[in-house]
């Protein structure tokens, strides 16, 4: 201790990270108490783009809330569509035609791949490598084009409806998706050679930012964060919804709990999503894409209902409380990154600042989903 430092508090200083900082991917602020280069205390400050989606839900009809779901997690909007339409279908007892379920899975998995690709590019960018982002965006562009052709939008999709989907796919979409799967399978070895096997990346990620399985449980972490800590938990397998049980796919789980494990989980998930899409396209049944006789004005029975789906970042759950009227009485949105980020303060204690940024990147934050 230096002669001037009267107390421990004088040994530390406060460093403000964000809200405008490239590593925080949006508007997240972290108040860091630093001891030199080491973090003593980290306090994420949220709410910069809080829009109160839950109150909006109470002020509009069940169907009018649909576009909001695409604006929380803008990188995996279709999963949010899926969670919301599923819970309303559960509440109102609407059956969905099989073809519509297939289309939901195909588009949601394509969206998951695009989300992982963007994360991959942005994460390497956080670590100081610029060019992988360009490769990842090149591939992601193909997905955006495919999804644009069927959903009509490129980012904030609102494609699912109560009882089905808005639009049927055509042969161009099927051919384009098959071509894309082939293309991405050809590119994955390149990604691994260019990035995964890179010694600099390995040094930056291996044994950095360990998160234990117990910490995941105490903070409610889901998705790649808990699967990187050896917990085999994927809502698609654990609590099967839609037609996921029809498909043969694996849940990548890594035991190490470090940033590298979370990186590997997401890279492996890209391949698993491609497998699901491939099987779904092979088995795609004919038929309608919308249920008949879905009432124009929905009035689900009184009570509360829950439905969870697996997004690219973890388990997204919607709890609705219906009072039997045409608007939700209460709409709770449980977003995965909110819980995943809440463990950041504990996980990064005692870490070097650049390592903490690697850890933050490996959590795959999407701020509008945290702030809602």
């Amino acid at each position, binding site marked *: 201790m230096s002669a001037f430092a009267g107390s421990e508090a004088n040994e530390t200083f406060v460093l403000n990270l964000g809200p405008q900082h490239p590593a925080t991917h949006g508007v997240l602020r972290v108040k860091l108490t630093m001891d030199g280069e080491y973090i003593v205390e980290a306090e994420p400050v*949220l*709410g910069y783009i*809080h829009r*109160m989606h*839950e*109150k909006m839900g*109470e002020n509009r009809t069940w169907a009018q809330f649909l576009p909001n779901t695409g604006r929380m997690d803008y990188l995996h909007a279709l999963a949010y569509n899926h969670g919301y339409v599923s*819970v309303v279908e*559960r509440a109102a007892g609407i059956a969905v035609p099989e073809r519509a379920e297939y289309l939901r899975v195909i588009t949601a998995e394509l969206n998951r791949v695009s989300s992982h690709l963007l994360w991959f590019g942005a994460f390497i960018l956080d670590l100081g490598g610029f060019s992988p982002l360009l490769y990842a965006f090149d591939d992601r562009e193909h997905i955006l084009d495919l999804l644009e052709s069927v959903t009509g939008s490129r980012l904030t999709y609102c494609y699912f409806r109560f009882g089905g989907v808005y639009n049927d796919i055509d042969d161009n979409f099927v051919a384009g998706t098959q071509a894309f799967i082939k293309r991405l399978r050809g590119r994955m070895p390149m990604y691994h050679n260019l990035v995964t096997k890179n010694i600099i990346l390995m040094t930056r990620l291996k044994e950095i930012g360990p998160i234990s399985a117990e910490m*995941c*449980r*105490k*903070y*409610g*972490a889901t998705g790649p964060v*808990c699967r990187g800590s050896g*917990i*085999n*938990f994927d809502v698609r397998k*654990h*609590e099967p919804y839609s037609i996921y049980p029809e498909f043969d796919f694996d849940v990548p789980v890594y035991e190490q709990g470090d940033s590298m494990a979370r990186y590997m989980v997401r890279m492996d998930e890209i391949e698993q999503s491609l497998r699901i899409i491939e099987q779904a396209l092979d088995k795609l049944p004919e038929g309608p894409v919308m249920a008949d006789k879905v009432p124009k004005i929905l009035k689900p029975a009184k*009570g*509360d*209902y*829950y*439905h*969870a789906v697996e997004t690219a970042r973890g*388990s997204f*759950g919607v*709890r609705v*409380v219906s009072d039997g009227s045409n608007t939700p*009485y*209460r709409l*709770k949105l*449980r977003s995965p990154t*909110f*819980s995943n980020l*809440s*463990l950041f303060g*504990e996980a990064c204690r005692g870490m070097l600042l650049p390592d903490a940024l690697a850890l933050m990147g490996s959590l795959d934050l999407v701020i509008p989903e945290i*702030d*809602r």
Partner: protein
Amino acid sequence: MNRAAIKQKLAAIPAEAVIETDYDRKGFTLDVQVAPAQLVAAVSVLDAAGFFIEAVTGVDWLGEQAALRKEAQAKIAAEAKARAEAAAAAGEEPPPAAPPAEQGELPEDALEAVYDFNHYEELCRVTVRTRVPRSKPEVPSISEIYPGANWHERETHDFFGIIFAGHPYLVPLLLPEDADYHPLLKDFRP
């Protein structure tokens, strides 16, 4: 830990009600209602059984008591009407009018805190609910047991004004730091 064992342990707390719900219809397995004083005990049981915390939230039941009374009055009126009709059909004297339904002051409406738990290995979603009066919404904090509840409770305090007693840092999380309003209350006017 299987479902029946958890149900038994929760019922022993004593919880006010432990209801096994229809999962396919509702999306969760157990619906547990406890008094605020028993909340920590219930959550400790779930913690010991290896559950993880999904979310904490609230529901404002403003107007529920008035609606319940209206329903009860409508029921009494309907019964009286049915009796009168039955008497008229049998050609008897109409029975004396039913005593007027209970008036008096309404019991206070409640704020409900809702805790969602889930298990990594087994499909078992447990919803724990506790009700507190709207004028004194105080619930014990569970952030000692689940540090992840810290943020969820702060968010619920933002939105509903529920005070989590024993919370280490109950300041606004998503709302501005000087926010003194609770937007998800049904009587909130911006």
